[in-house]
């Protein structure tokens, strides 16, 4: 077992040092000024993620899930606090981080064919030739089962297939961190569970650290290693729930486990209670913030 670890990882174990979390969100706050009034959306958010972890962020609508994701992706700068990626502050969209948007219809470019949509972000890498880009894109499209659609335009495909293209585009960049903003919200139920399994498989295969924003409690439990429940006003982390289900997830088997049902009840209760009581979450979050450190999970 130890042989499988890199020297770096072994060093961490032997030294009993705390590894740098893959992503550290530290005291993050976000407020906007609108019509001379400051509106604080997020306050005092702490989350630590270890490498290869899959986290879901849930919370009632308007809780600031997307805002939080935008801060992590570097699209927006938090008003206070920081987001660190491998210990370094994020000042703009970092390399090795890919974002999948909910609205695939707008985030895929309709004037480009599927293949060109996937290769476009790779053009920034000047060392890659057109041939290498195409090969990387085709491999990524292959991984999402869309090898035959390369020459089509996105709008010629179904919604589920378009979101697969978006996943392939993210994948082709070989990201270490994958962020998803309600990626399955606009597809039908069957497609949704197919895509969930596809993403789970891919994240594991390519060893990506993943954050999924969703409003679907079942989905959050099914997909994740941990579920972050956002709540309160302004929003912070209301609860952090470990999902200790077997690593191999299955739409039928996993979802019928008593543990799964208990977990989804717990998440659901957490989401609902922070919504109904409002301020409770603030106390909770500040009280818990110390316990949210990733150290407890490191090297697990």
């Amino acid at each position, binding site marked *: 077992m130890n042989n499988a670890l890199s020297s770096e990882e072994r060093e961490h174990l032997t030294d009993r040092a705390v590894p740098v979390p893959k992503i550290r969100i530290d005291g993050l706050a976000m407020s906007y000024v609108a019509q001379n009034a400051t509106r604080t959306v997020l306050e005092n958010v702490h989350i630590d993620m270890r490498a290869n972890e899959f986290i879901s962020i849930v919370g009632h609508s308007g809780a600031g899930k997307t805002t939080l994701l935008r801060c992590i*992706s*570097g*699209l927006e700068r938090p008003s206070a606090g920081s987001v660190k990626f491998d210990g370094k502050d994020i000042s*703009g*969209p970092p*390399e090795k*981080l*890919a*974002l999948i*948007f909910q*609205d695939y219809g*707008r*985030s895929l*470019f*309709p*004037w*480009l064919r599927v293949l*060109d949509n996937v290769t*476009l*972000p790779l*053009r*920034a890498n000047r060392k890659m030739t057109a041939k290498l880009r195409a090969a990387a894109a085709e491999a990524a499209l292959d991984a999402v089962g869309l090898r035959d659609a390369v020459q089509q*335009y996105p*709008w*010629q495909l179904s919604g589920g297939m378009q979101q697969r293209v978006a996943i392939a*585009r993210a994948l082709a*960049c070989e990201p270490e961190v994958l962020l998803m903003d309600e990626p399955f919200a606009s597809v039908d139920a069957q497609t949704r569970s197919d895509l969930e399994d596809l993403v789970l498989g891919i994240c594991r295969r390519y060893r990506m650290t993943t954050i999924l924003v969703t409003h679907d409690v079942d989905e959050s439990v099914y997909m994740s290693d941990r579920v972050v429940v956002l709540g309160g006003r302004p929003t912070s982390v209301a609860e952090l729930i470990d999902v200790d289900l077997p690593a191999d997830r299955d739409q039928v088997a996993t979802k019928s486990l008593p543990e799964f049902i208990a977990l989804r009840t717990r998440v659901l209760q957490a989401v609902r209670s922070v919504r109904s009581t409002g301020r409770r979450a603030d106390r909770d979050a500040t009280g818990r913030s110390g316990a949210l450190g990733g150290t407890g999970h490191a090297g697990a």
Partner: protein
Amino acid sequence: MTRSFSLRVLEVAVPVGLVALWWFLGDTALTSFYFPPLRDIWASFRATWIFAHVGSDVVPTLLGIGLGYATSVVLGISLGVILGSFPRVNEFLTPLLEFLRALPAIAAIPIFIVVIGVSLKMEIAVVTFAALWPILLNVSDAVAGVDPVVRDTSRSYRIRGFDRLVRVTLPSASPQIVAGMRVALTQSIVIIIVSELIVSARGIGHFIQTAQWNFDITAMWSGMILIGLIGFALSKLFQVFEYKVLAWHRGLHGKAQR
């Protein structure tokens, strides 16, 4: 959507029928000095435009349109992208630009004559001045209004610089750019003919003017018909261009309607 066959037949039959009607009415008493028979106009047309005056009049006109239009497209798109990318500058300049667009380019011809002098250069400048504004304003509008999701996607996938301009910004703005270019093309044709009517010593407009001065009404008509045909041909050419450039937009739109 495919048009029905009968509609297509009608589309060709109506103009052909009208021309035939004109042709045969011209042989009856229904003509005057000012409205000569089409048969005579056609004879004059053949004598003048196939191809005696092509080099002396048609080429200068087309050159003026072509070079002026090309300049306005290049300038309009480049300046439009710059303005659209800097909303502050855009806001500041919008009243001035709206004024320049509202100003009929015809009214500016005299100043171009004074400053540049009657020449091809002046014609190109006048055409550019007339065609620039619809393109410039459409481009800056479209670039400033790029879908926020498209912006976010480009930013998060680090699509920058030339790639971003050519593969994201311009295509996303292309429906509006093409619309501006269509208006500009019409403007170009109008303004070149006007400037030839007023000052030039050559060109189709000048030919029509000369024919009028000489009371050669038949030749005048043939020049008018030639201009009509050129305008028609250019707009058909533009349609082909538009069809190619906006194929994706049509597909996207067609799907949304279905």
